[in-house]
C-alpha cells in the first residue's frame, strides 16, 4: 500500500468515526441523520479508496464491493440500533454478507458452516433470549451509550493501526506442492474434503479439544440455568401505555 493510500484510508476512517459517534444512541438531541450522511460518505470514500488505490481499476471485484458494503453497514447498524432485536437481525445480515465473502474466497465449506452455525443456531438463540427478556420498546439502557467518544477513538485508532499495515503483506509461505494442490482446488471450487483431511490429520487434537469444550459448555449452561435463583427485584419495570392485549396474565 502506498502512503497516499494509507493517508486516504485514515481520512475515511476518521470520517467514519465521526459518523459512528453521531449514530450511537445518546441522550438529548438526535443526530442520527447527520451521522448517517457522514457514515455513508465514509463508506463511499472507502469504496473509492479501495477501488483506486488498493484493488485497482479494471479488476472485476463487484461482488466484493457489494458484500463488503453490506457487511460494514449492517455491522454499523448492529452496534447503533437502539432495539436489540434489530441488532440481531442486522447481525444476520452481517453473517450472510460474510458468508458471501467467504464464497468469494473459495472457502465454501467454511461459508456454509458459518451460515448454519451462526445464522441457524447461535443467532436464533440470541433472538430467543431477546424475545423472552424484552418484548418490545427499548429501555433507557438501550438508548444511552457508555462513553461513546473514547470508545470510538480507541476502536478507530486500533482499526487504522491495523488496516494501515494491511498492504504490507508478507510473501506467501506456501511451498510448491501445497501451492499446487491449493491451485488445483481453486480451479475446481470446493475444498470440503481437503479441509476434512487437514482437520482430521493435522489438527486432530484441536478437534478433540473443541469437542470437549463444547460438551463442557453445554453441561455448564445447563447447570447454570437450571438452578433456582433468588429474585432480587420483584416489581416489573413500568409498562408503556397503549399496548393491546398485554394487560391480562396468560395463566
Amino acid at each position: 500500500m502506498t502512503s497516499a493510500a494509507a493517508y486516504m484510508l485514515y481520512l475515511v476512517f476518521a470520517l467514519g468515526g465521526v459518523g459512528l459517534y453521531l449514530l450511537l444512541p445518546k441522550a438529548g438531541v438526535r443526530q442520527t441523520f447527520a451521522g448517517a450522511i457522514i457514515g455513508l460518505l465514509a463508506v463511499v470514500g472507502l469504496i473509492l479508496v479501495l477501488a483506486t488505490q488498493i484493488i485497482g481499476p479494471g479488476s472485476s471485484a463487484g461482488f466484493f464491493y457489494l458484500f463488503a458494503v453490506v457487511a460494514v453497514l449492517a455491522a454499523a447498524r448492529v452496534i447503533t440500533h437502539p432495539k436489540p432485536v434489530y441488532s440481531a437481525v442486522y447481525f444476520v445480515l452481517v453473517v450472510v454478507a460474510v458468508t458471501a465473502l467467504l464464497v468469494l474466497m473459495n472457502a465454501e465449506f467454511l461459508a456454509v458452516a458459518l451460515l448454519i452455525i451462526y445464522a441457524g443456531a447461535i443467532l436464533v438463540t440470541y433472538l430467543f433470549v431477546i424475545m423472552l427478556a424484552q418484548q418490545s420498546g427499548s429501555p433507557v439502557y438501550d438508548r444511552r451509550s457508555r462513553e461513546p467518544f473514547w470508545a470510538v477513538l480507541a476502536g478507530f485508532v486500533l482499526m487504522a493501526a491495523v488496516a494501515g499495515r494491511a498492504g504490507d503483506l508478507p510473501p506467501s509461505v506456501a511451498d510448491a506442492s501445497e501451492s499446487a494442490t491449493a491451485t488445483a482446488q481453486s480451479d475446481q471450487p470446493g475444498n470440503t474434503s481437503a479441509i476434512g483431511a487437514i482437520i482430521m490429520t493435522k489438527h486432530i487434537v484441536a478437534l478433540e479439544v473443541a469437542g470437549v469444550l463444547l460438551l463442557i459448555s453445554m453441561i455448564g449452561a445447563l447447570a447454570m440455568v437450571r438452578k433456582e435463583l433468588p429474585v432480587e427485584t420483584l416489581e416489573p419495570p413500568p409498562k408503556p401505555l397503549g399496548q393491546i392485549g398485554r394487560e391480562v396474565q396468560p395463566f
Partner: protein
Amino acid sequence: MFGATEYLVLGSILFALGLVGFLTRRNLIVIFLSTEVMFQGVVINAVAFARHHEHLEGQSFALFLLVIAAVEAGLALGMVVMLYRRKGTLDAEAWSLMRG
C-alpha cells in the same frame, strides 16, 4: 491474482466496529452480539490469510473459531438469562459488584 489487502481492511473494520459496540452498548445481549461481529472480522482475516498463503490453516482455524463462538454463545446466553432472572434488567451497569 488474489489480493488479500482489501479483505484485511474489511476484517479490521468489522473488528473495530464490534469493538466499539462492545465498549459503548449497555445491553448485555448487544454486548455479546458485538463480540460476534468481532468474530466475523477475525474469520475474514483468517480466511484471507489462508487464501494469500494458499493453504488451509486459516480456514481450519476459522472453523475452530466457530466452535468457540458457539461455546461462548451458549454460556453467555445462559448467564444472561440467569442475570436477567436476578435483576429483571439486561443493563450491564446493574452488575458492578466488583466496584472498588
